[in-house]
């Protein structure tokens, strides 16, 4: 069995595993975990909202780490991982920015309020959107990788600001971590952990796929160079 087919089988296995965990997660959310007494059924948005927010933060942390690694070693594979993670993190932040206002509308009766958690989250989304735009606008590979690595390192500064914003300034956004622990019933805590695990698995599945696309793109570029060389 060649290396490519082993990789394909592993990717399929990983994809199926993610799907199974996702089904379990949905079962827990909609059929198992009890409704929250004050907010009612709409509180169930929380499990996807927090799960995707966690993955977005984690994705941007990976961008930060692999950007540093790229600047230190100049190895293209680190740049590919950072770029793929930034793209996935932006997708998950998009989900956070969609589910947040829907939850806000049902709880606060407004889609959006310029309170610190929401504002810093929106800034985070814009930072990584700019990262993606920078990558797509610069054609020279070295320059693109270096620029986006610097962007990825500086951009990460906003992640702890988003996380701690509820403690530092916010009055209206719910706080999950308070007084050194989580204010959740055991069933809710378990469901949240399964949700976090599900989206983390999905993140790694996406990372695998997107890095494979970037690698294939680089291979195509090399082959094109080879072809041009043989024609000249």
């Amino acid at each position, binding site marked *: 069995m060649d290396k490519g087919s082993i990789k394909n089988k592993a990717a399929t296995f990983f994809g199926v595993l993610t799907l199974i965990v996702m089904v379990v997660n949905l079962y827990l959310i909609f059929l198992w975990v009890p409704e929250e007494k004050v907010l009612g*059924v*709409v509180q*169930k*948005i929380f499990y*996807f*909202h927090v799960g*995707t927010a966690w993955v977005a933060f984690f994705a941007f942390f990976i961008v930060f780490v692999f950007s540093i690694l790229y600047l230190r070693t100049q190895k293209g594979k680190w740049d590919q991982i950072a770029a793929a993670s930034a793209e996935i993190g932006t*997708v998950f932040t*998009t*989900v956070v920015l*969609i*589910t947040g206002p*829907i*939850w806000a*509308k*049902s709880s606060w009766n407004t889609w959006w309020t310029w309170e610190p958690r929401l504002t810093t989250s929106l800034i985070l989304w814009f930072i990584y959107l700019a990262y993606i735009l920078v990558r797509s606008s610069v054609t020279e590979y070295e320059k693109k990788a270096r620029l986006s690595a610097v962007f990825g390192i500086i951009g990460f500064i906003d992640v702890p600001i988003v996380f701690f914003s509820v403690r530092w300034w916010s009055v209206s956004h719910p706080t999950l971590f308070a007084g050194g622990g989580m204010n959740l019933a055991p069933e809710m805590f378990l469901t949240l952990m399964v949700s976090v695990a599900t989206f983390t698995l*999905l993140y790694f599945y*996406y990372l695998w*796929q*997107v890095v*494979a*696309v970037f690698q*294939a*793109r680089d*291979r*195509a570029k090399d*082959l*094109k160079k*080879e*072809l041009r060389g*043989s*024609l000249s």
Partner: protein
Amino acid sequence: MKYLFWAYTITWLVLFAYTVSIGLRQNKIDKELKWIKKLIDERKGRTVNK
């Protein structure tokens, strides 16, 4: 209930669209790679025949 429905539906749509976009990119690059490899093989074949 409608808020819950829309939150989950939109989340699924975004994730589904992203999964499809990765698949499309993969297919496109696979086709491109096959085409380039074919061109290189043809080119090599011509060189050998000469």
